[in-house]
């Protein structure tokens, strides 16, 4: 006999992401999921963000890495709550460990939680962790073809940070090609050009975060 089931195959994971989404809405805490290749500048972006926004907002970080606490240690000097998740082999963060991490924070007194996902353009895009926005970070050094090669992330993200623009004169990075590729996948998604190293372009990123926060509080 045929039995209709119609159930999501990652049902437990979906439910947990939904639980996180409800919790963040209740506490009015913005959570952004920063996704990019290893070396694209996720931690550098967070360093600049924590330094600039800590006077204005109560911030926290969930730091995901396969191994080591190197990124968490880099962020310690900004004196915000940090929860480190060592996935010990898993290539992405999933909602169960995010939910446990959120319990470590005084969520009601936090404005923004940043999740620095494992360095990977593929798998983190697949897994909903209950975030308000996925932010794709790509760097000039990786080449201009990454959006078309990793379409799910660039289609799902709410913003693209194009980092290391100070390297443009030294590479064959075709900015028009990159912009067109992103536009083809994701209409009017903002592309914010930055150099974390040279502290360029970051104001637009901070403004975007402020807008996301304002949207949440409506």
């Amino acid at each position, binding site marked *: 006999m045929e039995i*209709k*089931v119609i159930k999501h195959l990652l049902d437990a994971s979906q439910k947990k992401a939904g639980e996180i989404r409800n919790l963040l809405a209740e506490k009015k805490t913005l959570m952004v999921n920063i996704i990019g290749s290893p070396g694209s500048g996720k931690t550098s972006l967070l360093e600049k963000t924590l330094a600039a926004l800590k006077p204005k907002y109560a911030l926290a970080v969930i730091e995901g890495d396969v191994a080591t606490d190197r990124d968490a240690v880099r962020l310690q000097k900004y004196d915000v709550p940090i929860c480190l998740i060592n996935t010990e082999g898993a290539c992405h963060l999933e909602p169960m460990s995010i939910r446990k991490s959120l319990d470590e924070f005084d969520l009601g007194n936090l404005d923004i939680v940043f999740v620095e996902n494992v360095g990977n353009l593929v798998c983190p895009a*697949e897994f909903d962790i209950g975030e308000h926005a996925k932010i794709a970070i790509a760097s000039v050094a990786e080449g201009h073809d990454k959006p078309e090669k990793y379409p799910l992330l660039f289609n799902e993200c709410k913003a693209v940070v194009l980092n290391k623009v100070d390297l443009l004169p030294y590479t064959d990075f075709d900015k028009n090609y990159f912009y067109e590729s992103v536009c083809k996948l994701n209409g009017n998604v903002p592309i914010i050009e930055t150099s974390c190293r040279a502290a360029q372009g970051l104001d637009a990123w901070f403004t975007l975060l402020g807008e996301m926060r304002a949207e949440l509080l409506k």
Partner: protein
Amino acid sequence: MHEFSIVEGLMGIIEETAQKHSLCRVDLVKLKIGAMRQAVPEALQFAFEALADGTVAQGAKIIIEEIPVRIKCNDCSGENTVKDYAFFCPSCESRQVTVIQGKELFIESLEGD
């Protein structure tokens, strides 16, 4: 991607459903998987054969229906199938579109006795 995780989830649902309906064996499983999910049918098949071994679904056939990516235009309301990952409306060329299909990851049904 993560076909083993997906099949682990599937096996849980199959076992729960089989128990609920007192099935001694499951012969057929129908899945609906959206084209944007990056799931490889051959890898799903392989993972299923490995994980179904020794369970009520051992030897069951899997049928995977791939669901194409479709968008609805926020400006002209036209609905179209996405070709070549181009997420804009072919009728009015608007980039303001909503994905209405193509991210599914469901078990539709199963058959057994």
